[in-house]
């Protein structure tokens, strides 16, 4: 196990040994031997050479357990992989970069724009050539709104997801959704979102949804 902090201490890259398989968009639940009681879901950031990596926001409960733990218990992979998109524009905010990065590592794409509120985040992560990266007060959407690309894949905070749906109403926008979950297997019904086809669950039916099918007013405050 390897834990690397960004220089400011606000993000963590967690690397664990793993011999199994996983695809971009899929996630694992993680807990240490002392907690948390409900394992937390994390999208795969990278999988290569027998190592799997996750991006963790510092300051949360998981970090408390991570520091000083001997082992991390992983369960997964859960969720459906990101569908293969034709020359997509990839957008991310904060830890939402994890599934976007894994997709960029394994699929063709046109452009990638990465946002974070902490500039030292960009020293922690691996950025593909010709990436655009922005920090507050500029957001990835400020740049992306000028892009002519038709297919867009986005993962980021709720505010970014809400803004993107209005901004890209005439594009094929795919959202990698995140909700608190407990079972990760479609049983507990905790990670509900509303779609044109009724209530769906991020863990079992997602995490990728077409923005046009998601009712974000119901899903977010």
């Amino acid at each position, binding site marked *: 196990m390897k834990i690397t902090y960004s220089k400011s201490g606000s993000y963590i890259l967690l690397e664990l040994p793993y011999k199994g398989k996983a695809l971009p968009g899929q996630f694992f639940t993680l807990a240490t031997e002392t907690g948390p009681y409900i394992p937390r879901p994390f999208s795969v950031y990278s999988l290569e050479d027998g190592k799997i990596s996750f991006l963790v926001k510092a300051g949360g409960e998981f970090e408390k357990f991570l520091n000083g733990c001997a082992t991390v218990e992983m369960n997964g992979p859960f969720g459906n992989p990101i569908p293969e998109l034709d020359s997509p524009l990839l957008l991310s905010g904060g830890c939402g970069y994890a599934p976007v990065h894994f997709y960029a590592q394994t699929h063709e794409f046109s452009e990638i724009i990465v946002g974070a509120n902490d500039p030292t985040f960009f020293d922690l992560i691996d950025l593909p050539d010709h990436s655009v990266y922005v920090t507050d007060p500029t957001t990835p959407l400020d740049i992306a709104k000028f892009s002519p690309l038709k297919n867009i894949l986005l993962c980021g905070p709720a505010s970014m997801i809400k803004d993107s749906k209005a901004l890209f109403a005439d594009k094929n926008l795919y959202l990698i959704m995140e909700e608190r979950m407990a079972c990760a*297997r479609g049983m507990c019904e*905790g990670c509900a979102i509303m779609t044109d086809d009724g209530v769906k669950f991020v863990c*079992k039916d997602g995490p990728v949804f077409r923005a046009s099918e998601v009712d974000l007013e119901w899903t977010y405050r």
Partner: protein
Amino acid sequence: MDLSLRIKGIEFKNPIVIASGPLGFGEEFFKYISSSFIGGFTTKTITLNPVIGNKPPRLVYVEDGLLNSIGLQNPGLDAFIINYAPHLPESCVRIISVGGEKAEDFARVTEGVDSFADMIEINLSCPNVGGQTIVSDLKSAKAVVSACRKSTKKPLIAKLSPDEDPVIQARMAVDAGADVVNIGNSIQGARFNVDSGRPFLKNVKGGLSGPAFMPVILLKVYQIKDAFPDLPVIGLGGVRKAEDIVEYAIAGASLAGIGSSAMINPDNVRIIYENLQKFMDKRGFNFREMIGIAHRGGFV
């Protein structure tokens, strides 16, 4: 040693009962674990009409627990009978949880699910629908249990609330015709976001489950058993290891529910079952001999 026990004519091969709610109708759960490790499986609550459930967030993480606000999402009676009821596991006791707003609704759902159930659990205590739990109004709760009693000959379980007096609730349930009581549902609680200054949950309150509140339920099991020595009790809340089930039995529970622990990892149920068998073998007595032993002076 023997883990089996008979409750109101129904044979449980062990005292582990999967709680209503977190494992749905078992369609995902039983992909991960065999029902041979389980004494009984309780479905999530069925209502007469479909219920969409609450808007997110539906979960708040709590140290050693979980605060939920699912809101009884379910497909309704008709869809349950067509799509789910025929597929309930047959190698353990099938307990179907019924819910609703009025006594007539409960009665109709009870009639509808009767042929698919070995036992029926009446959910009187969901903390996440409406303003108050049904059982907070004893008169309404009694009308519900009585209506269900008239609708089935199957053993009835009254699922009570840890937010109300357990003995008064149990008396109401027994008087109205319940055969077993389950104490209980999740206890009402809330968390507030220190950044936004607002509650995490839209309804403010949710139901707290998990090990954090097991001592609360253990006391209520003990109190019910003290008042009703012959009434079978299901203790539900916070079980995550075999010794927790032993503790529930000592307090007076015949059966012990498992919810969040099975949800986190279904294989936890197998581990709990195997360790419970080892515990009983080591102690050298049958599980049923241990039920309520705290009321008889303990292991002497």
